[in-house]
């Protein structure tokens, strides 16, 4: 335990924790997307899948607890690192140009909190059914269609997923680098792979509200 705390006390240790929890979160995001895409196979299929998830009981709670812990650690490490980074340059430059870094990398600290806000809103709506749309406990398919038929809800969802895409575009490559996953032969693939995965994830999720709005799923 003492060794774990020493490890975490350095910025390298915190980054490793952020990257490792990032891996879990990416896996969850992909799994969740594949689950959601069953909406294209009709109400029975999606509702049966939702019922199956709920029926797993302890397993479902196990996954939920692990994800909650991952989110907390991810945010804690991110907050501590950001504060350390701010402190590392108390006097800024009169003129500073970025040569290599990009928009996604520079805005991780903005996209992260936005995603958190969205996740809370999303859980309130679809998991705790706390929003006033009159969503049902069993008809997941109906809930999704009903929610996304409202342009406001779809718009929030679309913006949130684009933000997530940006976060993943830098995050996926960054977590590989932080975890020391590199090899001269495959290094270029990490950037390309991160980009492809980020686009696939954003596109996969976005296909649902877009299809509802266009009336393809109804």
């Amino acid at each position, binding site marked *: 335990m003492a060794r774990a705390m*020493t490890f975490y006390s*350095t910025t390298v240790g915190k980054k490793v924790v952020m990257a490792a929890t990032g891996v879990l979160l990416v896996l969850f995001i992909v799994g969740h997307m594949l689950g959601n895409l069953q909406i294209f196979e009709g109400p029975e299929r999606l509702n049966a899948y939702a019922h199956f998830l709920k029926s797993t009981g302890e397993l479902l709670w196990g996954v939920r607890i692990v994800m909650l812990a991952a989110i907390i650690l991810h945010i804690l490490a991110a907050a501590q690192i950001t504060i350390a980074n701010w*402190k590392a340059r108390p006097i800024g430059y009169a003129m500073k140009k970025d*040569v*290599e*870094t990009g928009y996604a990398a520079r805005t991780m600290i903005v996209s992260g909190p936005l995603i958190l806000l969205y996740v809370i809103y999303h859980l309130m709506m679809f998991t705790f059914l706390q929003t006033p749309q009159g969503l049902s406990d069993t008809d997941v398919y109906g809930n999704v269609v009903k929610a996304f038929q409202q342009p406001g809800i779809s718009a929030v969802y679309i913006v949130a997923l684009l933000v997530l895409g940006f976060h993943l575009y830098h995050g996926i490559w960054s977590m590989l680098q932080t975890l020391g996953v*590199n090899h001269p032969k495959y290094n270029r693939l990490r950037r390309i792979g991160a980009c492809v995965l980020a686009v696939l994830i954003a596109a996969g999720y976005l296909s649902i509200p877009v299809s509802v709005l266009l009336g393809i799923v109804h």
Partner: protein
Amino acid sequence: MKLTLKIWRQESPEDKGRLVSYEMDGVAEDTSFLELLDILNQRLIKKGEHPVTFDHDCREGICGSCGFMISGIAHGPQKLTTTCQLFMRQFKDGDTIVAEPFRSRAFPVIKDLVVDRSALDKIVQAGGFISARTGSGPDGNAIPISKEKADRSMDAAACIGCGACVAACPNGSAMLFTAAKISHLGLLPQGQPERKQRALRMVAKMQELGFGACSNHGECEAVCPKGISIDFIARLNRDYMVASALETVEPVKKV
């Protein structure tokens, strides 16, 4: 050519400091940046003003003494180049050039463009060495080292410790420097006995000195005059993870 220089002037570490403009006329294209400052300084001395203070030594891009921010980029706009090797042909007639010291909590400004970079030496002192017997040099080729390993170790050893990586990093992180120092030893057989302690000690020192974290922006590699790759940062991360799992940090033993 005609240039406007805006240079950071700061009398002492306590002074607040400010950018001061100087008009330079009739500058030859093959003047180096440091020579340009020499010319300006002659002028200032004649007028009885204080010359601009800046670090330099070899003026051939190998010692790592020189370096400041030139219009927002560490060592200026030319890739793989130190400040002393940057020539005026990289600029256009009429350009305004801003020169500021490298900025980081661990690099306090001493005067004008000179900063105290001894923090980098402290990181090396913490673990950037091997313990070997002194005496006559070992026989050549007595220890076989593959060409690939030797090349990569040399790539890391090319670091001249100028501090541009820290200056360019949005987080003021010294990861590229530390990674280069850890790797050039860690890639060779002679560096193996202390490899884990080295990673633990140098990372802890970096932390203690107040450098920021690596966010994998890649700005450091882009400005490094020796082109040190951020692959070495991934290597540092691996070494640190393995070392943390297997050992706890021990103080350096002096014999």
